[in-house]
């Protein structure tokens, strides 16, 4: 969104292609940013407003790139847009949601709650239009269609294809959280009260499944003790050999927000190194000053659940002393890392990809500029730098091609 807006506000015409239902990406799913502890929706809202007011940006949601032909100054980008089953006439009045009796797992909340089969992607969605998860609609069901006063729903809608012309291409495809079920010693997927950091963000978000409070999925009760497991997959040859750059700050932030939510909660953050760069150091200072949050050096090797009490026991090696440490927690948050998303993008051969799947930010000859977490794991502010820079580079490519 930032590349698109920054370029458009210099007068460039931009097609913004998004595979999902709404703009904002992972950021829209976060509760807060570190170090300011401010809500991401604040900046998103400004950007949505810039988009609403800017005729230079054409937004295409549910859209995938199927082929890229041509070169700098003369790209032809083939796109495929999947059906949303709801058109822009939708007023979000909610009549269809009341009528729909079918439930789906809410992917926006990482499955922590359910939504109806017709739903608004999230309360701040852009575009503000419902969508239908037709994979779970009972065959022949027309309840939503029947009740819609503005005829916005068409369950027979089919996908479309198109070819767009472009001078330059920016790739800002972002990341997916590392699959925590691959960390078999840590019990995710096996023990209900082991969750991931992105799930924790949804819980701590006011518009999330638990309205801003962390709960134990096993019983919906508030946890008295929370443990954060850093480098859950990251900095590990067997999983992700790199550092995911944001997880230290994210867990510290979550611990700070948790203490605002529940003054009595006791928390432990297991870490290898505390990586908060620049002025994010302030976040670490704040956690260190909190007497109820313990920063424990050590890599967690194993988590075991007591089947009756659901209490989780973490075993770690304290790398300060070489001793084994054990700690109990009611809720464990795995700080899973970032996996780049650009795998199925049909990029020109001149674009390089490194061993870990990240795009190599090279010269401008290819006409393709990668930005953000497509290049390397990075916190939000660094992605904004990249994205603004990428906008400039697309202008350079266009200028050199003309």
């Amino acid at each position, binding site marked *: 969104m930032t590349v698109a807006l920054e370029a458009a*506000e*210099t007068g460039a015409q931009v097609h913004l292609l998004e595979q999902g239902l709404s703009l904002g990406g992972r950021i829209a799913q976060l509760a807060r940013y570190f170090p300011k502890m401010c809500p991401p929706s604040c900046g998103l809202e400004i950007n949505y407003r810039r988009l609403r007011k800017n005729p230079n940006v054409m937004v295409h949601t549910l859209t995938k790139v199927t082929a890229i032909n041509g070169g700098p100054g003369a790209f032809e980008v083939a796109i495929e847009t999947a059906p949303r089953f709801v058109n822009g006439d939708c007023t979000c009045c909610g009549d269809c949601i009341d009528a729909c009796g079918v439930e789906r797992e809410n992917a926006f909340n990482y499955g922590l709650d359910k939504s109806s089969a017709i739903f608004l992607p999230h309360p701040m969605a852009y575009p503000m239009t419902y969508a239908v998860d037709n994979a779970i609609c009972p065959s022949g069901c027309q309840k939503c269609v029947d009740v819609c006063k503005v005829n916005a729903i068409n369950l027979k809608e089919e996908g479309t294809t198109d070819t767009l012309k472009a001078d330059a291409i920016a790739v800002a495809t972002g990341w997916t959280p590392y699959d925590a079920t691959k960390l078999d010693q840590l019990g995710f997927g096996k023990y209900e009260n082991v969750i991931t950091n992105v799930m924790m963000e949804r819980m701590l978000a006011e518009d999330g499944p638990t309205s801003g409070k962390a709960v134990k999925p096993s019983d919906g009760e508030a946890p008295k003790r929370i443990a954060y497991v850093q480098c859950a997959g990251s900095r590990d040859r067997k999983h992700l050999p790199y550092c995911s750059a944001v997880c230290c700050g994210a867990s510290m932030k979550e611990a700070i927000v948790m203490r605002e939510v529940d003054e009595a909660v006791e928390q432990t953050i297991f870490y290898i190194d505390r990586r908060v760069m*620049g002025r994010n150091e302030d976040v670490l200072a704040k956690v260190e000053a909190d007497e109820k949050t313990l920063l424990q050096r050590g890599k967690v090797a194993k988590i075991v659940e007591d089947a009756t009490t659901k209490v989780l026991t973490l075993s770690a090696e304290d790398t*300060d002393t070489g001793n084994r440490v054990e700690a109990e927690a009611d809720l464990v948050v795995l700080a899973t890392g970032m996996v780049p998303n650009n795998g199925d993008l049909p990029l020109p051969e001149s674009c390089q990809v490194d061993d870990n799947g990240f795009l190599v930010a090279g010269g401008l000859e290819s006409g393709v500029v990668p930005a953000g977490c497509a290049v390397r*794991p990075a916190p939000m502010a660094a992605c904004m730098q990249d994205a603004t820079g990428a906008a400039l580079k697309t*202008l350079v490519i266009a200028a050199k091609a003309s």
Partner: protein
Amino acid sequence: MEHKTIAYICTGCGIGEAVDADKLIEVGNELAPAVCKKHEYLCGKEGLAEIGQDIKDIEATHVVICACSERVFTDRFDFEDVFVHRTNLREHVAWCHTANDDGTQELAEDYVRMGITRCKNAETPEPLVQEVSDSVLVVGGGVSGLNAALNAADVGHDVVLVEKAEALGGFAATLHKTYPTAAPYTEAGENPVPGLVAAVEGNDRIQVLLGSTVSEVAGAPGKFDVKVGDKEFKIGAIVVATGFTPYDVTKLEHLGYGKSPDVVGSVQFEEMAKEGKFVRPSDGAPARKVVFVQCAGSRDPDHLPYCSSTCCMNSLKQANYLLENDDDAEAYILYKDMRTPSLYEQYYEAAQATPGIMLTKGEITGVEPNGNGKVKVTAGNTLLGEDIEIDADLVVLAQGKVPVMAEEGILNLTYRKGKELPTLKYGFPDSNFICFPYETARTGIYTVGCVRQPMDIVQCGEDAAGAALKAIQCVHATGGGTAVHPRAWDQTYPDFFLQRCTQCKRCTEECPFGTLDEDEKGTPLENPTRCRRCGVCMGACPERIISFKDYSVPMIGDMIKSVHVPDEFEEKPRYIGLICENDAYPAMDMAGLNHVEYSPLVRFIPVRCLGSVNRVWIADSLSAGIDGIILIGCKYGDDYQCHFLQGSELCSKRMENVQEDLQRLMLESERIKIVQLAINEYDKLPQIVNEFVEEVNNLGPNPYKGF
């Protein structure tokens, strides 16, 4: 053209079920618009066509859409050459208040009155299109400045690059090599500076001024008058890339500096590497056992409280220099946390596997000459679980980064509000906005690289491209007569009716962006292209002489006065809510979307920024019989969220004075409440609104009601 307002009440989305639309039309018609009618689905094709036809037939100039939030269907309710006002009967009325209730109906009626009233004075803005210079001034010729200059030149802008030193390159020019900047992140890289310098020197669009500093910046974006020595330039936008200085090692006595010549800073060690001479300064003997002390000054509240971000990687590189020069050398890196984020982890991993490089966490307890010509480094709390002692040939202190944005003249702005860019804590002229890193407190001036935040060469390169983009964007917006971020679409600008100015200087003092200067008498000198259109000046002005075409003191004042205030015997209190349109307004929309219910007694008016709230609106409210006023704006303090830096904070200060005024009028100060609310806190709205209403209800009616 004759002023003609047409108004529409949409009855879709539950509005028609919640309120009596015919009654709303009656109420609307009392204000004599050319048309006031209802439609069951205004945003649909037929509804829009009807509006379009009416505009044509009636030659309407103003359209009031009483329907959903202005945050949705913005493009549909956009009609050419007419002023459109959106009145929110959906999220702010039908979706959050009891259907068919008197309170709900009266709220909707007031909103219709307020919408039509707003249009009486509002005008469609005309952009202030003007000739601008599209040249970019870049201050600082290091990696960030060189990249910014090349980037701006590559898209066709002329660049003036000013460098204080006699050569380009900045600090990075002193580096022997860079740490790895590309996959597989295991080999140090060639220094990019010579290549960058050659590219800049070979670029016709870039004029380089060496050994120079900026002696004066006057004017405004699009037409800065910049003096560099005796040269003068017309400049469109400015990029500040003044970089950093390494932290002063002489302040690191606690880490042994000054106690032995063999304790050196990382900058000095880099020079050794460049010369290929790894020797002890004391006796010229080879330095074969070297201890690198991390966070030498950084992450230390007594020195630099922040992390300098690049020193861990830099010391790994320097340890590798040592080993590459001498296989048998030993490098010890003592750190607090090894910070090699992201893909740089791979360089750390490679170092861990390198014989001769020993890495351990440790807290330095002493660095002293040991009496035998070596320097003894002692550290506790190490990974090995015990204290360690190393007799080193050489100790290298990893120096942090200090931004070059000090008191001394970088820009020498002629601005009334100071010669330099305001800085945040720790001296960085950063934006304080995680989402919008380039927005400094001075329009058209963008900071980049290590002056803004500690960062490495790769990040400086990206950052430079970003800053160049912002500079170009500013020139584009300024020439076209629109604002820059965050109101990038806004074509209005403040008009000053200077005949009535009393030279009180409040507007010039309070503008967070240093927009206004003053003449000798104290009359404000307008610099519209410096303006971000927040309206703080309008809020500050006691004479109410500052206004925008679509936003002014009388416009909002008249909206307030249009509220129907029942007399005290009806026991129907009325409140005004002035809310930030950027955060509180969307939060109210979220509350509506979630059908969260709260008191219908408050009439909310969105404002550009709480800082634009003029005190007279409080007086207008109270003299109209309004019982209380609640102001909801962004959080302030160190981590302020106000998009206009200080707007909400300024408002809260002004309101303290207003509360004092109230007490003098024998009115309770509780009738005015200011609340900080983040956009995500919509769930708190009912409590905030209801508590306020209850508190003021308990005070009884405004005694001025009916006068």
